[in-house]
């Protein structure tokens, strides 16, 4: 790991950027149907799932987004791969905008180079398809093989790459265990020879011993194939194990972006500190934890100012009214008035 320097951590120090996420935001309309609104005089209800999310990922790097449920991490992941359109901001991958209409031709070429691995391998594999067809789908869709035998050969290689037997291709998803299914999902993601893989909670549905297998596999594949990961998780220990830089999200906004090591040794944002403090301690140090008060507020009516202020022990009048900007603090980028003013 490199030394701590005074550069904003939302961008890696190398110039070789693969992914740039710029001011990404998404608002969902969660209003009742029109007739109900008219009869009940209910206003529209808008949910800001993500706002002003800015970060960049260098080639062969793993960038992780962590946060509790409702923090908007999966929404950001889906916008990055283009599964949902942003309300504001843009995602630039290798110079091509994922959402600008002008780039639609280049985007079609770019698509092959981006893949996604989802959380639940029970839901992300078609139960009526054999593993062979599941893994072969991207190969066929992008026309990466000529003839059936070549497809089968490529699928066999992919299955071997993720630690399965090529003969497993004849089986259906229900014949595999959870860990094996996630291996199939990874093989499918690798089938189009991508450079960038978005992993949305890839191990949350798995047992710890199987999780260890999948995390090790993902790291090996990254080393062998030079992959770039955007890794989404709520598990701080998993993120620490996988990522080189980490973004912490709270109620749709990035509160802190920092190199992995710095985030765990010197967490700056009060929310990051709270998260780290709340993780159960496996080392039995007997440290006294001050339990955090409260829960994540409803994102439909987020608190004004800094969204974390009702739970924050350092909040003052400014925090309650003025939204903090993301500013560099040491090796990190932190959105917090208390950090900016040097109060903590």
């Amino acid at each position, binding site marked *: 790991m490199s030394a701590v320097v005074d550069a904003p951590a939302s961008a890696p120090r190398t110039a070789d950027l693969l992914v740039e996420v710029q001011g990404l935001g998404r608002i969902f309309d969660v209003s009742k149907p029109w007739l109900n609104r008219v009869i009940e005089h209910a206003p529209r209800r808008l949910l800001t799932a993500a706002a002003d999310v800015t970060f960049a990922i260098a080639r062969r790097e793993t960038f992780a987004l962590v946060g*509790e*449920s409702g923090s908007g991490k999966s929404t950001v992941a889906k916008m990055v791969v283009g599964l949902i359109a942003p309300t504001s901001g843009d995602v630039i991958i290798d110079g091509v905008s994922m959402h600008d209409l002008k780039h639609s031709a280049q985007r079609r070429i770019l698509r092959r180079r981006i893949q996604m691995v989802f959380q639940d391998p029970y839901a992300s594999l078609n139960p009526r398809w054999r593993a062979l067809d599941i893994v072969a789908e991207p190969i066929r869709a992008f026309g990466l093989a000529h003839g059936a035998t070549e497809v089968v050969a490529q699928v066999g290689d992919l299955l071997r790459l993720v630690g399965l037997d090529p003969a497993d291709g004849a089986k259906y998803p229900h014949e595999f*265990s*959870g*860990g*094996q299914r996630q291996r199939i999902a990874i093989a499918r993601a690798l089938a189009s020879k991508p450079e960038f893989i978005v992993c949305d909670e890839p191990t949350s549905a798995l*047992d*710890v*011993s*199987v*999780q*260890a*297998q999948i*995390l*090790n596999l993902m*790291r090996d594949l990254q080393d062998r194939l030079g992959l770039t990961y955007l890794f989404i998780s*709520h*598990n*701080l*220990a*998993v993120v*620490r*194990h996988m990522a080189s830089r980490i973004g912490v999200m709270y109620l749709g906004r990035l509160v802190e972006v920092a190199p*992995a090591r710095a985030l*765990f040794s010197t967490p700056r944002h009060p929310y990051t500190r*709270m*998260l*780290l*403090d*709340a*993780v*159960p*301690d*496996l*080392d*039995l140090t007997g440290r006294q*934890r001050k*339990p*955090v008060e409260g*829960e*994540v507020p409803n994102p439909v009516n987020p608190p004004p100012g800094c969204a974390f202020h009702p739970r924050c022990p350092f909040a003052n009048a400014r925090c309650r009214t003025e939204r903090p900007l993301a500013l560099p603090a040491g090796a990190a980028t932190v959105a917090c008035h208390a950090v900016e003013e040097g109060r903590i």
Partner: protein
Amino acid sequence: MTDPVLSLRNLRVEFPTRRGTLTAIDGVSFDIAPGEVLGVVGESGAGKSITGAAVIGLIEPPGHIAGGAVYLRGQRIDNLAPEAMRKIRGKRIGMVFQDPLTSLNPLYRIGEQLVETIKTHTTLSDSAARKKALSLLTEVGIPAPETRIDNYPHQFSGGMRQRVVLALALAAEPELVIADEPTTALDVSVQAQIIALLKRLCHQHGAAVMLITHDMGVIAETADRVAVMYAGRVAEIGPVRDVIKAPLHPYTKGLMGSIPSLTGESERLTQIPGAMPRLTAIPSGCAFHPRCPRSFVPCATFRPELQPEQKSQVACWLYQPYPVTAGAVT
């Protein structure tokens, strides 16, 4: 040592199916002392939840207890008539399930559900029961309980609901609380609150706890002793510090190594090859032997029993004389 609150002796739970009988729990024995928190860990399919359900008599038919016994304060409870068991359930054994939304009735106010539970198990009047319900809600940390008591479950957040479920479990002052993955559905910051609350409440009420979870971190923070389950059997049981810091069974060692840590270097995780066996195909001998890096002569044929080793008990031939050579090998 005082008499245990709960004793399991060689408990065996079977599920008859069309393709033969599945043994979900196979010879599980342990004790829980008064006021003790026993953690039960294992991966999915290890039989931890079935163990909890067997104790409280809630195994779904056609599953049934096929052998062994469950004792509550020395009284055998696994063969009781349904009506007698119903009197114990809730009164002497409280239960906390994983998902607070499914363990509360969405159609009744929180207060009604608490009062119903209190009145079922005590002789209190309506007003006294409501007063008790209010004090329970205050105790579990619900803000403004006087107004919240008349709310419905959907008006509570996940963490608050789990607090209500804790209040329900403790309403009749049970001797034992079975908590089955009480924090798995919650975010990490709320999880810390609920664990602290569970620990404090059970300590104050003098209730013993059987804490079922897959999360070693939760066990490390909460339990006094821990039982590690694998394929329906207890692989290792001992004081939490010994099991976590110096695990004996190769499965426990692998399990501890596979957990990513918040401290130390982030090198490769230890991985256990393979996956938990399906109930239809439990290996012979020691159920862990096909995945075990240290399996040897007796493991595939003979099943090891729990034997005392240091401060723990472990079911592994590495720590006991094995039957192939008649001589003593330790």
